[in-house]
């Protein structure tokens, strides 16, 4: 029993826990194969989960059961709870001793997101930000000017209003659409009511979403600036009706709606690119986020983390080195799904190559310097879930803004209180 189990563990392959759709997983498989080929004798086992929840369940049970995978890939918004619990092995010494990796080669914002208590815990493999995907063909058809860098929130609202049309192409106001009135055939904008979508605009307007980004204790959406940004967001649905109703969203999610040519603009991360590349009916592109005062983006980034309880740390590190190195980054970049965290690779044709849409892929890179990370609190996942519900009701049901802001604060306070910070 036990003996054979543990001995098997130490000699076996390096286990890497990842999640993603089959194509994404295929990309990781390419990566591990390339590694095994480049370093004969090595063995990396990809442990595949299909989504974040599955990955969490696997990770949690295996850690608790005493047999964690050696490496796992995780978003910075969620790694906090593992970091706080000492599951993750700090990498500073190994980075220092490595000649394949120079921290300076990577976008600092991403590197910073994965430092906890002053230590580099994980190494980011990608950096992304929100962008506005738009349907160029539709803009051309209705003669509305396309979004361009530096446009403001009000510009966006105006554009969205102009693009909200009924089936005859007449501009309509989506708020009348309840009940008997005709529904817009095309909506101006798709946006998800969540704290990560709200954050960049609050920042852009000069506000903060938490009282202390390093050691947050509460949400600060009650400041006038933040409140204004939030109100503007809610107005998209409640005042202008440019975003689909919740019923419509349930009926057809924004990504599909965009792909079907019935959404003029969609605020989303790099992730949607792969899906949209299958669009043949129209031409689309990306634009940076609109601004209030200054251009600010919000960070999306995943990193490789090494578990403290892993049995093959050296071998794991060697693979990590490879994956993060230029060579590994190129392989991943080729899939198009992510923006590489390696500055060099991200600016190379491997990523910017014009053969595939979006033409303005550079938008993703251009925003990186303006990108800010969300606070790293170990209870962040809970905070996101709680706020999502409240924001959803604010956007779609038009809950009173004061109540919304109060609820957001009250319900997240205990979570912040319970959370640990890096």
């Amino acid at each position, binding site marked *: *029993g*036990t003996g*054979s*189990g543990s001995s*098997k563990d130490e000699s076996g392959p390096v*286990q890497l826990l990842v999640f*993603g*759709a*089959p*194509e994404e*997983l*295929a990309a990781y498989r390419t990566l591990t194969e390339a590694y095994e080929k480049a370093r004969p004798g090595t063995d990396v*086992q*990809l*442990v*595949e*989960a*299909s*989504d974040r929840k*599955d990955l969490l*369940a*696997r990770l*949690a*049970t*295996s850690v*608790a*059961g*005493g*047999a964690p*995978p050696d490496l796992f890939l995780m978003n910075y918004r969620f790694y906090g709870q593992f970091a706080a619990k000492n599951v993750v092995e700090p990498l500073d010494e190994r980075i220092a001793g490595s000649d394949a990796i120079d921290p300076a080669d990577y976008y600092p914002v991403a590197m910073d997101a994965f430092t906890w208590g002053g230590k580099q815990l994980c190494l980011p493999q990608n950096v992304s930000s929100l962008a506005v995907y738009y349907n160029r063909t539709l803009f051309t058809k209705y003669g509305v000017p396309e979004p361009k860098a530096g446009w403001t929130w009000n510009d966006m609202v105006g554009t969205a209003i102009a693009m909200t049309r009924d089936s005859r192409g007449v501009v309509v106001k989506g708020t009348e659409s309840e009940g008997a009135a005709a529904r817009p055939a095309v909506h101006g904008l798709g946006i998800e009511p969540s704290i990560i979508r709200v954050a960049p605009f609050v920042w852009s307007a000069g506000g903060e979403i938490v009282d202390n980004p390093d050691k947050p204790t509460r949400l600060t959406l009650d400041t006038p600036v933040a409140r204004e940004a939030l109100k503007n967001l809610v107005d998209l649905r409640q005042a202008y009706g440019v975003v689909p109703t919740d019923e419509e969203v349930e*009926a*057809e*999610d924004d*990504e*599909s709606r965009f*792909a*079907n*040519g019935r959404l003029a603009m969609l605020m989303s991360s790099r992730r949607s690119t*792969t*899906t949209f590349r*299958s*669009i043949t*009916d129209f031409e689309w592109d990306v634009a940076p986020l609109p601004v209030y005062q200054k251009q600010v983006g919000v960070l999306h980034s995943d990193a490789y983390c090494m578990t403290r309880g892993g049995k093959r740390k050296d071998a794991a590190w060697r693979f990590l080195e490879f994956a993060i190195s230029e060579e590994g980054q190129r392989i991943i970049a080729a899939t198009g799904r992510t923006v590489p965290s390696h500055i060099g690779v991200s600016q190379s044709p491997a990523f910017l190559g014009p053969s595939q849409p979006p033409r303005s892929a550079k938008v993703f890179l251009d925003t990186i310097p303006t990108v800010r990370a969300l606070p790293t609190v170990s209870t962040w996942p809970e905070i996101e879930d709680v706020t999502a519900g409240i924001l959803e009701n604010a956007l779609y049901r038009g809950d009173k803004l004061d109540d919304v802001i109060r609820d957001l604060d009250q319900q997240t306070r205990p979570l912040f209180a319970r959370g640990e910070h890096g």
Partner: protein
Amino acid sequence: MGGRASGPPPLPGAAGRVWRTLGAAFVVLVFVPPLLLLVSGSLTEPGLPPSPTPHLVPDPVSTAGYRQALEIGGLLRASLNSVLVAVVAVPLSVLVAALAGFALARLAPRTTATVVAASLVALMVPATALLVPRFAIFRALGLTDTLVPLIAPALLGTSPLYVLVYYLAFRALPRDLYDACLVEDLSPMRIWWRVALPLVRPVTAALTALTFVLTWSNFLDPLIYVYDRDLFTLPLALRSLSVLDPTNFPVFLAGAVLATAPALLVFVLAQRRFLHHDDPTGRDRP
């Protein structure tokens, strides 16, 4: 009541039959269409923007979904694993359940009461409460990342419910039959095999089918205990297809159809063979 036939009485009832047929038709009408949507969805061409309305007859009809499901999802390999698990786990599970149910029916009332109570308690435990401790047990036994943990629930008869169902079925057999066996000096094992089991054949058929379905669609266990992609079972493979982007929905649906078909087939076979073939006494007429 040794010769007491069981099963439905052959009451003359052409009218009854018509009603039952109508009822059956209604059941089919309610239950089947949603699944036709599933099938038609799976026959849609993948890679197209998702249509908001499901069409009953896809245009164009395409089997590309199936091809891709097999390729991307590794469904072939996964099916093989699933079959492997089912082939071992289902008979084992039915065996365990039937034996345990029989033992319960024949043991002293006090023992029976204890085990029945324990089984009920076991039924109450949510699966999520078991994941972590079970993982620790399997790891201690060096069995993680093998198919064994997926087969292990067979030891439990897959669900204590099935043991209890067997228990009730065996208990309902006329006592004289057991007595007749005792007089012939049959060991409990042989009473079980020669007399008791054949007499509860509909129960066995039903539970076999259910065990198969349950084993076949077991998702949580492989998710936790299996790492190696080569050991993935069908639900796990299907799960990975479910996160495909919306344009590839037909691929996922194709996978779902492929995963459903065997379970359905097993049920149809089971009900043909045993449930339909009226009672073992052969008393029934067509």
